[in-house]
Structures are given as structure tokens and as C-alpha cells.
């Protein structure tokens, strides 16, 4: 699997995700600068976390208009898989590759913590190493992760099975006695990650790339990378 990791001014998780990809593939991904309108053919494009362009105006808004994203949009339309993590999720939604948007956390605080996620489906190139309903533990680190889409869009997402991950309790509960369980940011329907209609684009707020080594608190994120290698090699 040949992967490209985009780098914007202000990206800061590009090294982490490159490391995770190298761990499972044995090869270093191609790092692509935001000003590059063209880059070699790859099997996967990763838009990493960070604070692209200082998150000015809106998170991901400027990055979504960069030369490299014009090329990413072209390739995504030809079904080249795209994975957006954290700021990368914000960028791909701003670029129109995924519906909805990420708003300020409902409690207005930056949240940096391990969270539990329920895997909604194993039927995608990103999640085939997980079981539907499986609970995994990965970290989040963001201030704007509150997923929002209008009611019609939300219904379509739910009906078409485009929800990839939901925040949940350690036991996998989503609706509990105290309301929404394990929701760190106020996201509608506890949504932590969504697919596009063809499930070739995935955006998620949590950082699976930071849960691939036991030394750093767990390996539950590794399945995502292993699954992609299996699907794309």
C-alpha cells in the first residue's frame, strides 16, 4: 500500500500518522506539501491532524482551498481512498468530500483524553479488521469536534449506514440514563466518524494513529491501518 500524507503549514500529526503507516506497511509514506498541485499515484491519501493555516476563519477552511486539495478532490472522485483525521476531518468536510461540519465543542473546552468508540460497520476498507459493534479505545485532542449536519442530511447518513464510529461508554452504551454516553464534544448522535456514500472517504476526530503501540496506552487504532493495508495492497 502506497500512501501519501499531506502536510499543511500548522499540521502537527503528520509524523504520527506516517509512523503508524510505516509500522504496518514497512514503508514510509510520501509526504506531500500543501502547495503541490500534483504528486505521484498512491493507494491512499491521508489528511492529518493539526492546526492548518492556524485554523484561521474556520478550522480547515483555508486548507480545503489549497492546491493539493484540488488534486485530492479530483482523485477522490476517481475513488482513491481518503482518510481525514481530526483537523484532516475538518479539512475534508470543508472541501465537500464529506457532509456536515465540525463545530466548537459544546462545553467550549479543548478535550484531550482517551475515548471509547463503537465501530458501526466492518464493511469498509477502513474498518474491515474490526467487528460491527466492537468497542475500541483511542485518544481525542480537539476543540472543534462537535459534528453537525442538518436533519435531512443526518437522516440520509443514518439510513445509508454512513456512520463509521460513535462515542460510547467503555461497555459500548450510547444512550444512557444520563443522556448521551461518552460523548466528549456534543456531537449529534454521538458521531465520531463518517464515510462518504461509497465508503471511500472516512473522516474521524479521534486519533487511531496514536493508539498503535502498547507503550503509548493501547493498540486499538492499529486495526484501522492493518485493515487498509489488507484492502489496498
Amino acid at each position, binding site marked *: 500500500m502506497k500512501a501519501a500524507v499531506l502536510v499543511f503549514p500548522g499540521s502537527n500529526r503528520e509524523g504520527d500518522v506516517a509512523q503508524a503507516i510505516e509500522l504496518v506497511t514497512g514503508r514510509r509514506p510520501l509526504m506531500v506539501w500543501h502547495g503541490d498541485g500534483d504528486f505521484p499515484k498512491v493507494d491512499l491519501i491521508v489528511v492529518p491532524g493539526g492546526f492548518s493555516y492556524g485554523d484561521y*476563519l*474556520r478550522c480547515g*477552511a*483555508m486548507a480545503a*482551498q489549497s492546491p493539493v486539495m484540488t488534486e485530492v478532490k479530483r482523485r477522490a472522485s476517481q475513488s482513491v481512498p481518503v482518510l481525514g483525521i481530526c483537523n484532516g476531518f475538518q479539512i475534508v468536510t*470543508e472541501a465537500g468530500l464529506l*457532509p*456536515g*461540519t465540525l*463545530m*466548537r*465543542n*459544546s*462545553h*467550549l473546552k479543548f478535550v484531550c483524553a482517551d475515548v471509547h468508540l463503537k465501530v458501526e460497520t466492518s464493511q469498509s476498507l477502513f474498518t474491515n479488521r474490526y467487528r460491527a459493534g466492537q468497542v475500541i479505545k483511542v485518544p481525542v485532542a480537539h476543540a472543534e469536534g462537535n459534528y*453537525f*449536519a*442538518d436533519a435531512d442530511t443526518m437522516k440520509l447518513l443514518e439510513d445509508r449506514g454512513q456512520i463509521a464510529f460513535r462515542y460510547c461508554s467503555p461497555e459500548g452504551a450510547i444512550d444512557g440514563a444520563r443522556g448521551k454516553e461518552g460523548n466528549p464534544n*456534543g456531537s449529534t448522535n454521538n458521531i465520531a466518524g463518517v464515510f462518504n456514500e461509497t465508503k471511500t472517504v472516512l473522516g474521524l476526530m479521534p486519533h487511531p494513529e496514536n493508539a498503535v503501540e502498547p507503550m503509548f496506552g493501547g493498540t486499538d487504532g492499529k486495526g484501522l491501518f492493518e485493515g487498509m493495508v489488507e484492502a489496498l495492497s
Partner: protein
Amino acid sequence: MKARVHVTLKNGVLDPQGKAIGHSLNRLGFAEVGDVRQGKYIELELAETDKAKAKARLEDMCKKLLANTVIENYSIELVG
């Protein structure tokens, strides 16, 4: 020509920042303050003299970058 663009959250979109501002004002003794909505104000200097053309270009700017129409409305005002 100068343009003023206001970007505001659509009705029904939760605005936790506006809520926090409202609470702070209430705490400061401004009990009359109810709902507060926060937005953005952007001032642009344009090298364009035709108002209709400027307006059309600004519409395009708002749709492409200045506003996220999933959650935001925008209004455009031309001055001078």
C-alpha cells in the same frame, strides 16, 4: 470600494459561544440580556468600481471561503 461581510450562524444551530457570552453578561448584572448569537465581521478592500460586479464576486467569495453554508448565513454590504 469597500465591502462589509457579516457571517452568522443559521437559526437552529447551537451557538455555545453566544450562550457563554449571554451568561457572562447576566452575571455582570445585565439581566435584560436573553439569547446571544456570535458571528464574524469581515471588511474587504476591493479593486472594483462596478457595484453589481463586486456583489457577484463577493457572493462567490462567501460561498467558496468566507462562510460555511452548512451552518452559516452571510450578508454583504458595499460602502463607498
